[in-house]
């Protein structure tokens, strides 16, 4: 593939695109694992949502 006299600029444009998209993907994936870790850590410490806690006996499930 011969990109001619503008090769440097064409390659720079595609490298920028790969870098920007790569950083976006890294941010989303990194954030996912960070939030998953934080939720798992809270669960391990017994901190859960009220709706996830077992209901005391005699209390009915909401309709």
């Amino acid at each position, binding site marked *: 593939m011969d990109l001619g006299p503008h090769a440097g600029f064409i390659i720079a444009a595609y490298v920028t*695109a790969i870098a920007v*998209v790569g950083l976006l*993907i890294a941010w989303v994936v990194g954030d996912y694992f960070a*939030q998953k870790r*934080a939720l798992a850590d*809270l669960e391990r410490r017994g*901190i859960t949502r009220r709706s996830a806690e077992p209901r005391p006996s005699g209390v009915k499930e909401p309709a």
Partner: protein
Amino acid sequence: MDLHRFANPARFMRLSAAILPWCGAATATLIAVGLYLALFVAPPDYQQGEAVRIMYVHVPAAAMSSVVYGVLALASAIAIIWRHPLADIAAQSAAPIGAAFTLLCLVTGSLWGVKMWGTWWVWDARLTSVLVLFLMYLGLIALWRTIDDPARAGRAAAILTLVGAVNLPVIRFSVDWWNTLHQPASVFRMGGPTIDVSLLIPLFVMGIAFTLLFLTLHLAAMRNEIMRRRVRTLLLTQAERA
């Protein structure tokens, strides 16, 4: 159809978990096909030569920079009118992706412009309005990070987003309203595209690939934000109990 049913965060987490792998696979495939067409199949332009290949990343990025802001504005309007938390989350999650597309548009446009126009930058209406769009995205991200309470931050950001939406028609029609160095519309215009079909097909493939990329990243970022808010709520509940 009751759309509120699908706007429930728990339901959204289930649905998005099922959709996300398919979106990711379709995005990767289309990007690979698009890059192959753009770099190896599309012919050089009769005037611009090989430099026209920059178009295949610049134009989809430019289109997505406006489309994402449109999504943000729509989500903000829904968040203000119906106060739906998922709409607020959709708006918040779209902003960094929109900022990235706009940055990509500005950088690739500059690289293209220096060869075709002989300058990296001019303060013409199109380039300046896109720069304003980029600054709007950065401002919105900063606003969401400045206010601690997501509900309050969401309301403030929604109002700012809707005010900033006035920039969208300015971007679109700037090349018609003012005398700009940037060329007028050549793809989405009355009377059809002015680009040859051999250049247009790779451009459309890349356009669809970028749209799918946004959809995939947006769904994933929304899931992350829902989890972040769950963590915040749990920590606040724990602090209240203590």
